[in-house]
Protein backbone atom coordinates (compact mmCIF):
# COMPACT_ATOMS: atom_id res chain seq x y z
CA UNK A 1 0.00 0.00 0.00
CA UNK A 2 1.21 3.48 -0.81
CA UNK A 3 0.55 6.26 1.63
CA UNK A 4 -0.06 9.16 -0.71
CA UNK A 5 -1.08 12.19 1.27
CA UNK A 6 1.70 13.96 3.10
CA UNK A 7 -0.34 14.67 6.28
CA UNK A 8 -1.31 10.98 6.44
CA UNK A 9 2.30 9.90 5.98
CA UNK A 10 3.41 12.20 8.77
CA UNK A 11 0.57 11.13 11.08
CA UNK A 12 1.45 7.46 10.55
CA UNK A 13 5.16 8.14 11.11
CA UNK A 14 4.26 9.93 14.36
CA UNK A 15 2.11 7.08 15.68
CA UNK A 16 4.72 4.57 14.59
CA UNK A 17 7.41 6.40 16.57
CA UNK A 18 5.02 6.83 19.50
CA UNK A 19 4.23 3.10 19.45
CA UNK A 20 0.47 3.38 18.96
CA UNK A 21 0.48 2.19 15.34
CA UNK A 22 -0.24 -1.47 15.79
CA UNK A 23 -1.18 -4.80 14.35
CA UNK A 24 -1.52 -5.11 10.60
CA UNK A 25 -1.23 -1.33 10.15
CA UNK A 26 2.17 -1.40 11.86
CA UNK A 27 3.40 -4.30 9.73
CA UNK A 28 2.16 -2.66 6.54
CA UNK A 29 3.87 0.57 7.52
CA UNK A 30 7.13 -1.26 8.23
CA UNK A 31 7.00 -2.85 4.80
CA UNK A 32 6.57 0.58 3.22
CA UNK A 33 9.53 1.90 5.20
CA UNK A 34 11.85 -0.55 3.48
CA UNK A 35 11.71 1.15 0.11
CA UNK A 36 10.61 4.64 1.02
CA UNK A 37 13.56 6.67 2.33
CA UNK A 38 11.42 9.80 2.70
CA UNK A 39 9.02 7.92 4.94
CA UNK A 40 11.99 6.65 6.99
CA UNK A 41 13.09 10.25 7.29
CA UNK A 42 9.68 11.25 8.72
CA UNK A 43 9.98 8.43 11.29
CA UNK A 44 13.50 9.51 12.24
CA UNK A 45 12.28 13.08 12.72
CA UNK A 46 9.54 11.89 15.04
CA UNK A 47 11.89 9.62 16.95
CA UNK A 48 14.17 12.59 17.47
CA UNK A 49 11.31 14.86 18.59
CA UNK A 50 10.13 12.31 21.18
CA UNK A 51 13.58 11.09 22.26
CA UNK A 52 13.87 13.43 25.28
CA UNK A 53 11.05 11.37 26.85
CA UNK A 54 13.56 8.51 27.14
CA UNK A 55 15.00 10.44 30.09
CA UNK A 56 11.89 9.40 32.05
CA UNK A 57 13.05 5.76 32.15
CA UNK A 58 15.39 5.10 35.07
CA UNK A 59 18.62 3.39 34.01
CA UNK A 60 18.79 -0.17 35.33
CA UNK A 61 21.94 -2.29 35.25
CA UNK A 62 21.16 -5.47 33.31
CA UNK A 63 22.39 -8.81 34.73
CA UNK A 64 25.77 -10.00 33.45
CA UNK A 65 24.22 -12.96 31.63
CA UNK A 66 22.71 -10.60 29.07
CA UNK A 67 26.13 -9.47 27.85
CA UNK A 68 27.48 -13.03 27.90
CA UNK A 69 24.68 -14.19 25.64
CA UNK A 70 25.12 -11.25 23.28
CA UNK A 71 28.84 -11.96 23.06
CA UNK A 72 28.20 -15.65 22.36
CA UNK A 73 25.78 -14.76 19.63
CA UNK A 74 27.90 -12.20 17.83
CA UNK A 75 31.02 -14.36 18.05
CA UNK A 76 29.16 -17.34 16.69
CA UNK A 77 27.80 -15.20 13.89
CA UNK A 78 31.26 -13.97 12.99
CA UNK A 79 32.92 -17.33 12.78
CA UNK A 80 33.94 -18.88 16.06
CA UNK A 81 34.64 -18.45 19.71
CA UNK A 82 37.51 -16.07 20.02
CA UNK A 83 38.16 -13.44 22.59
CA UNK A 84 38.06 -9.81 21.53
CA UNK A 85 41.33 -8.77 19.96
CA UNK A 86 42.67 -5.76 18.15
CA UNK A 87 41.21 -4.40 14.96
CA UNK A 88 44.05 -5.44 12.62
CA UNK A 89 43.72 -9.03 13.66
CA UNK A 90 40.00 -9.11 12.92
CA UNK A 91 40.60 -7.83 9.44
CA UNK A 92 42.79 -10.77 8.61
CA UNK A 93 40.66 -12.87 6.29
CA UNK A 94 42.95 -15.88 6.36
CA UNK A 95 42.40 -16.02 10.07
CA UNK A 96 38.66 -16.03 9.50
CA UNK A 97 38.72 -18.79 6.94
CA UNK A 98 40.88 -20.90 9.18
CA UNK A 99 38.58 -20.28 12.13
CA UNK A 100 35.54 -21.31 10.11
CA UNK A 101 37.22 -24.55 9.05
CA UNK A 102 38.41 -25.27 12.56
CA UNK A 103 34.95 -24.73 13.99
CA UNK A 104 33.39 -27.00 11.35
CA UNK A 105 35.89 -29.71 12.25
CA UNK A 106 35.30 -29.17 15.94
CA UNK A 107 31.58 -29.53 15.33
CA UNK A 108 32.05 -32.85 13.56
CA UNK A 109 34.28 -34.15 16.33
CA UNK A 110 31.77 -33.06 18.90
CA UNK A 111 28.91 -34.79 17.11
CA UNK A 112 30.96 -37.95 16.78
CA UNK A 113 32.03 -37.99 20.40
CA UNK A 114 28.45 -37.48 21.52
CA UNK A 115 27.16 -40.17 19.24
CA UNK A 116 29.71 -42.66 20.45
CA UNK A 117 28.78 -42.15 24.09
CA UNK A 118 25.71 -44.28 23.40
CA UNK A 119 26.72 -47.94 23.58
CA UNK A 120 26.46 -49.70 20.26
CA UNK A 121 26.19 -53.45 19.84
CA UNK A 122 28.11 -53.58 16.63
CA UNK A 123 30.28 -51.12 14.80
CA UNK A 124 28.18 -49.43 12.19
CA UNK A 125 28.46 -46.39 10.10
CA UNK A 126 27.03 -43.18 11.38
CA UNK A 127 25.55 -40.16 9.71
CA UNK A 128 26.61 -36.73 10.84
CA UNK A 129 25.27 -33.43 9.61
CA UNK A 130 26.94 -30.16 10.52
CA UNK A 131 24.34 -27.53 9.93
CA UNK A 132 25.46 -23.96 9.26
CA UNK A 133 23.89 -20.60 8.75
CA UNK A 134 24.10 -18.61 5.52
CA UNK A 135 27.61 -17.46 6.44
CA UNK A 136 28.72 -21.09 6.76
CA UNK A 137 29.08 -20.78 10.50
CA UNK A 138 28.14 -24.07 12.17
CA UNK A 139 25.15 -23.71 14.48
CA UNK A 140 24.00 -27.25 15.16
CA UNK A 141 24.88 -30.86 14.51
CA UNK A 142 22.65 -33.86 14.03
CA UNK A 143 23.79 -37.47 14.16
CA UNK A 144 22.21 -40.90 14.04
CA UNK A 145 21.56 -43.70 14.69
CA UNK A 146 21.04 -43.39 18.41
CA UNK A 147 20.59 -46.85 19.93
CA UNK A 148 17.70 -46.87 22.34
CA UNK A 149 15.25 -49.73 22.83
CA UNK A 150 14.29 -50.10 19.24
CA UNK A 151 13.18 -46.49 18.78
CA UNK A 152 14.58 -44.53 15.88
CA UNK A 153 16.07 -41.35 17.20
CA UNK A 154 18.45 -38.68 16.08
CA UNK A 155 20.72 -36.69 18.36
CA UNK A 156 20.82 -32.94 18.04
CA UNK A 157 23.33 -30.57 19.48
CA UNK A 158 22.60 -26.87 19.22
CA UNK A 159 25.75 -24.81 19.58
CA UNK A 160 24.37 -21.37 19.12
CA UNK A 161 21.24 -19.90 17.76
CA UNK A 162 18.92 -16.99 17.77
CA UNK A 163 16.29 -16.61 20.43
CA UNK A 164 13.11 -18.52 19.74
CA UNK A 165 10.10 -16.35 20.47
CA UNK A 166 6.90 -17.99 21.72
CA UNK A 167 5.18 -17.45 18.37
CA UNK A 168 7.85 -19.42 16.57
CA UNK A 169 8.65 -23.07 16.14
CA UNK A 170 11.86 -24.52 14.76
CA UNK A 171 11.21 -27.35 12.40
CA UNK A 172 13.79 -29.87 11.26
CA UNK A 173 13.58 -31.18 7.70
CA UNK A 174 15.14 -34.04 5.85
CA UNK A 175 16.25 -32.84 2.43
CA UNK A 176 16.24 -35.96 0.22
CA UNK A 177 18.06 -34.31 -2.67
CA UNK A 178 17.25 -34.25 -6.36
CA UNK A 179 13.85 -32.69 -6.85
CA UNK A 180 12.19 -34.51 -3.97
CA UNK A 181 10.44 -32.35 -1.40
CA UNK A 182 11.72 -31.93 2.16
CA UNK A 183 10.13 -34.18 4.79
CA UNK A 184 9.41 -32.85 8.27
CA UNK A 185 11.23 -34.58 11.12
CA UNK A 186 9.42 -32.59 13.76
CA UNK A 187 9.97 -29.58 15.98
CA UNK A 188 13.09 -29.03 18.03
CA UNK A 189 13.65 -26.83 21.06
CA UNK A 190 16.46 -24.57 22.21
CA UNK A 191 18.18 -27.09 24.53
CA UNK A 192 21.88 -27.56 23.79
CA UNK A 193 21.45 -31.32 23.58
CA UNK A 194 18.30 -33.12 22.60
CA UNK A 195 17.01 -36.24 20.93
CA UNK A 196 14.19 -36.45 18.46
CA UNK A 197 12.20 -39.57 17.64
CA UNK A 198 11.87 -40.18 13.92
CA UNK A 199 9.38 -42.56 12.30
CA UNK A 200 11.24 -45.82 11.78
CA UNK A 201 10.09 -46.04 8.17
CA UNK A 202 11.92 -42.77 7.44
CA UNK A 203 15.31 -44.13 8.47
CA UNK A 204 16.27 -45.70 5.11
CA UNK A 205 15.54 -42.39 3.38
CA UNK A 206 17.46 -40.53 6.11
CA UNK A 207 20.50 -42.66 5.43
CA UNK A 208 20.35 -41.73 1.74
CA UNK A 209 19.40 -38.07 2.22
CA UNK A 210 21.38 -35.18 0.82
CA UNK A 211 21.13 -33.29 4.09
CA UNK A 212 19.01 -31.56 6.72
CA UNK A 213 17.60 -28.09 7.15
CA UNK A 214 15.99 -26.18 10.00
CA UNK A 215 13.39 -23.51 9.33
CA UNK A 216 11.62 -20.95 11.46
CA UNK A 217 7.89 -21.65 11.39
CA UNK A 218 4.80 -20.33 13.15
CA UNK A 219 4.04 -21.89 16.55
CA UNK A 220 2.93 -25.48 16.08
CA UNK A 221 5.05 -25.96 12.97
CA UNK A 222 4.64 -25.42 9.25
CA UNK A 223 0.96 -25.21 8.31
CA UNK A 224 1.63 -26.62 4.82
CA UNK A 225 3.89 -29.61 5.53
CA UNK A 226 6.72 -27.87 3.70
CA UNK A 227 9.14 -25.23 4.98
CA UNK A 228 7.44 -21.83 4.87
CA UNK A 229 9.85 -19.68 6.88
CA UNK A 230 13.48 -18.69 6.76
CA UNK A 231 16.05 -21.50 6.76
CA UNK A 232 18.24 -20.81 9.79
CA UNK A 233 20.65 -23.74 9.38
CA UNK A 234 21.28 -26.39 6.80
CA UNK A 235 23.95 -28.96 6.10
CA UNK A 236 24.91 -32.00 4.09
CA UNK A 237 24.94 -35.57 5.47
CA UNK A 238 28.37 -37.11 5.94
CA UNK A 239 28.75 -40.84 6.45
CA UNK A 240 31.41 -41.69 9.03
Amino acid at each position, binding site marked *: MKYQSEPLRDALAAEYALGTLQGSARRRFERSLKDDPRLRRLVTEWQSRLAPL*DALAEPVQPPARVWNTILDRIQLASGGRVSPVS*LGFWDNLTFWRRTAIVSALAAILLAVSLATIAPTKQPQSMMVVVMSDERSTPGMTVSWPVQQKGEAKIRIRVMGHETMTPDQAWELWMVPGGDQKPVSLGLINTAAEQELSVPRKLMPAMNQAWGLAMSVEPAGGSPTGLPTGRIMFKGQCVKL
Partner: protein
Amino acid sequence: MADNDPITELMARCALRDQRAFAELYRQTSAKLYGVAIRILRRQDWAEEVLQESFVNIWNHIADYSTSRSAPMTWMTAIVRNRALDWLRRPNLERGDEDYDLLLEAVPDDAPGPETLLGNSRDARALADCLKQLSGNQRQTIVLAYTHGLSHGELASHLKEPLGTVKTWIRRGLDRLRGCMDGKIN
Protein backbone atom coordinates in the same frame (compact mmCIF):
# COMPACT_ATOMS: atom_id res chain seq x y z
CA MET B 1 24.92 15.31 17.32
CA ALA B 2 28.55 16.35 17.04
CA ASP B 3 31.03 14.10 15.30
CA ASN B 4 33.21 13.88 18.36
CA ASP B 5 30.44 12.36 20.45
CA PRO B 6 32.05 9.35 22.20
CA ILE B 7 29.11 7.04 21.41
CA THR B 8 29.30 7.95 17.70
CA GLU B 9 32.99 7.13 17.73
CA LEU B 10 32.36 3.76 19.38
CA MET B 11 29.71 3.00 16.80
CA ALA B 12 32.09 3.81 13.96
CA ARG B 13 34.61 1.36 15.44
CA CYS B 14 31.85 -1.26 15.81
CA ALA B 15 31.07 -0.87 12.12
CA LEU B 16 34.67 -2.01 11.53
CA ARG B 17 33.85 -5.09 13.65
CA ASP B 18 35.82 -3.98 16.68
CA GLN B 19 34.40 -6.10 19.49
CA ARG B 20 36.16 -4.09 22.17
CA ALA B 21 34.37 -0.99 21.00
CA PHE B 22 31.12 -2.94 21.10
CA ALA B 23 31.82 -4.02 24.68
CA GLU B 24 32.42 -0.39 25.60
CA LEU B 25 29.28 0.71 23.76
CA TYR B 26 27.34 -1.87 25.76
CA ARG B 27 28.94 -0.71 29.00
CA GLN B 28 27.97 2.88 28.32
CA THR B 29 24.44 2.40 27.03
CA SER B 30 22.97 -0.86 28.31
CA ALA B 31 21.60 0.45 31.62
CA LYS B 32 19.76 3.25 29.85
CA LEU B 33 18.37 0.92 27.18
CA TYR B 34 17.48 -1.79 29.70
CA GLY B 35 15.57 0.88 31.65
CA VAL B 36 13.60 1.74 28.51
CA ALA B 37 12.78 -1.94 27.91
CA ILE B 38 11.74 -2.55 31.52
CA ARG B 39 9.56 0.52 31.46
CA ILE B 40 7.64 -0.81 28.47
CA LEU B 41 7.62 -4.54 29.26
CA ARG B 42 7.50 -4.45 33.07
CA ARG B 43 8.95 -7.94 33.23
CA GLN B 44 12.62 -8.50 33.79
CA ASP B 45 12.86 -11.74 31.78
CA TRP B 46 11.19 -10.15 28.75
CA ALA B 47 13.33 -7.02 29.05
CA GLU B 48 16.51 -9.14 29.17
CA GLU B 49 15.46 -11.00 26.06
CA VAL B 50 14.61 -7.79 24.22
CA LEU B 51 17.87 -6.11 25.27
CA GLN B 52 19.84 -9.10 24.11
CA GLU B 53 18.14 -9.24 20.73
CA SER B 54 18.48 -5.49 20.34
CA PHE B 55 22.23 -5.49 20.90
CA VAL B 56 22.75 -8.37 18.47
CA ASN B 57 20.67 -6.33 16.04
CA ILE B 58 22.69 -3.19 16.75
CA TRP B 59 25.92 -5.10 16.07
CA ASN B 60 24.57 -6.58 12.83
CA HIS B 61 23.11 -3.34 11.49
CA ILE B 62 25.50 -0.78 12.86
CA ALA B 63 26.70 0.09 9.36
CA ASP B 64 23.16 1.34 8.61
CA TYR B 65 23.43 3.91 11.37
CA SER B 66 25.32 6.38 9.20
CA THR B 67 22.28 6.82 6.95
CA SER B 68 19.78 7.27 9.76
CA ARG B 69 20.43 10.97 10.48
CA SER B 70 19.54 10.59 14.14
CA ALA B 71 21.58 10.81 17.32
CA PRO B 72 23.21 7.46 18.20
CA MET B 73 21.19 7.01 21.40
CA THR B 74 17.98 7.80 19.51
CA TRP B 75 18.87 5.20 16.90
CA MET B 76 19.65 2.52 19.50
CA THR B 77 16.64 3.39 21.63
CA ALA B 78 14.37 3.08 18.57
CA ILE B 79 15.68 -0.47 18.03
CA VAL B 80 14.96 -1.39 21.66
CA ARG B 81 11.54 0.26 21.61
CA ASN B 82 10.50 -1.48 18.39
CA ARG B 83 11.65 -4.86 19.70
CA ALA B 84 9.80 -4.28 22.97
CA LEU B 85 6.62 -3.18 21.19
CA ASP B 86 6.75 -6.17 18.82
CA TRP B 87 7.22 -8.39 21.85
CA LEU B 88 4.15 -6.91 23.54
CA ARG B 89 1.95 -7.21 20.52
CA ARG B 90 2.47 -10.92 20.12
CA PRO B 91 -0.86 -12.69 20.03
CA ASN B 92 -2.10 -14.15 23.32
CA LEU B 93 0.26 -12.13 25.42
CA GLU B 94 -1.11 -10.11 28.28
CA ARG B 95 0.77 -7.90 30.62
CA GLY B 96 -0.55 -7.86 34.15
CA ASP B 97 -2.98 -4.99 34.67
CA GLU B 98 -2.18 -4.30 38.28
CA ASP B 99 0.37 -1.58 37.62
CA TYR B 100 -1.73 0.57 35.34
CA ASP B 101 -3.62 2.50 37.94
CA LEU B 102 -0.43 3.38 39.77
CA LEU B 103 0.94 4.42 36.45
CA LEU B 104 -1.94 6.75 35.75
CA GLU B 105 -1.60 8.30 39.18
CA ALA B 106 2.02 8.92 38.39
CA VAL B 107 1.07 11.06 35.38
CA PRO B 108 -2.03 13.00 36.38
CA ASP B 109 -3.34 15.09 33.54
CA ASP B 110 -3.23 18.38 35.41
CA ALA B 111 0.22 18.02 36.96
CA PRO B 112 3.11 20.11 35.68
CA GLY B 113 3.96 16.91 33.88
CA PRO B 114 7.12 15.05 33.16
CA GLU B 115 8.44 17.82 30.98
CA THR B 116 10.24 19.24 33.99
CA LEU B 117 12.27 16.03 34.14
CA LEU B 118 13.36 15.87 30.55
CA GLY B 119 16.67 17.63 30.97
CA ASN B 120 18.29 20.73 29.67
CA SER B 121 19.39 20.02 26.15
CA ARG B 122 17.93 22.22 23.43
CA ASP B 123 15.79 19.37 22.08
CA ALA B 124 14.56 18.50 25.56
CA ARG B 125 13.59 22.09 26.27
CA ALA B 126 11.78 22.33 22.94
CA LEU B 127 9.80 19.17 23.67
CA ALA B 128 9.08 20.26 27.24
CA ASP B 129 7.84 23.68 26.13
CA CYS B 130 5.67 22.15 23.42
CA LEU B 131 4.20 19.50 25.72
CA LYS B 132 3.01 22.40 27.87
CA GLN B 133 1.04 23.75 24.92
CA LEU B 134 -1.04 20.58 24.75
CA SER B 135 -4.18 19.91 26.71
CA GLY B 136 -3.71 17.76 29.80
CA ASN B 137 -5.42 14.81 28.10
CA GLN B 138 -3.28 15.08 24.99
CA ARG B 139 -0.09 15.32 27.04
CA GLN B 140 -1.00 12.43 29.32
CA THR B 141 -1.95 10.02 26.55
CA ILE B 142 1.14 10.81 24.47
CA VAL B 143 3.56 10.50 27.38
CA LEU B 144 1.96 7.26 28.60
CA ALA B 145 1.87 5.72 25.15
CA TYR B 146 5.53 6.51 24.58
CA THR B 147 7.04 5.68 27.94
CA HIS B 148 4.97 2.61 28.78
CA GLY B 149 4.11 1.28 25.35
CA LEU B 150 0.36 1.51 25.97
CA SER B 151 -1.92 0.95 23.01
CA HIS B 152 -4.96 3.07 22.13
CA GLY B 153 -7.15 0.34 23.63
CA GLU B 154 -5.15 0.07 26.83
CA LEU B 155 -5.19 3.84 27.27
CA ALA B 156 -8.94 3.97 26.66
CA SER B 157 -9.76 1.24 29.13
CA HIS B 158 -7.54 2.60 31.88
CA LEU B 159 -8.50 6.22 31.41
CA LYS B 160 -12.14 5.06 31.13
CA GLU B 161 -12.65 7.08 28.00
CA PRO B 162 -14.04 6.01 24.61
CA LEU B 163 -11.44 4.64 22.19
CA GLY B 164 -12.27 7.31 19.60
CA THR B 165 -11.67 10.07 22.12
CA VAL B 166 -8.26 8.71 23.06
CA LYS B 167 -7.29 8.36 19.39
CA THR B 168 -8.31 11.95 18.76
CA TRP B 169 -6.33 13.25 21.75
CA ILE B 170 -3.24 11.49 20.47
CA ARG B 171 -3.65 12.50 16.85
CA ARG B 172 -4.35 16.15 17.62
CA GLY B 173 -1.67 16.21 20.31
CA LEU B 174 0.97 14.89 17.93
CA ASP B 175 -0.11 17.36 15.29
CA ARG B 176 0.22 20.30 17.67
CA LEU B 177 3.50 18.95 18.96
CA ARG B 178 4.99 18.89 15.49
CA GLY B 179 3.77 22.37 14.64
CA CYS B 180 5.17 23.72 17.88
CA MET B 181 8.55 21.96 17.67
CA ASP B 182 9.13 22.81 14.02
CA GLY B 183 8.54 26.42 14.94
CA LYS B 184 11.19 26.23 17.65
CA ILE B 185 13.89 24.37 15.81
CA ASN B 186 13.68 25.82 12.33
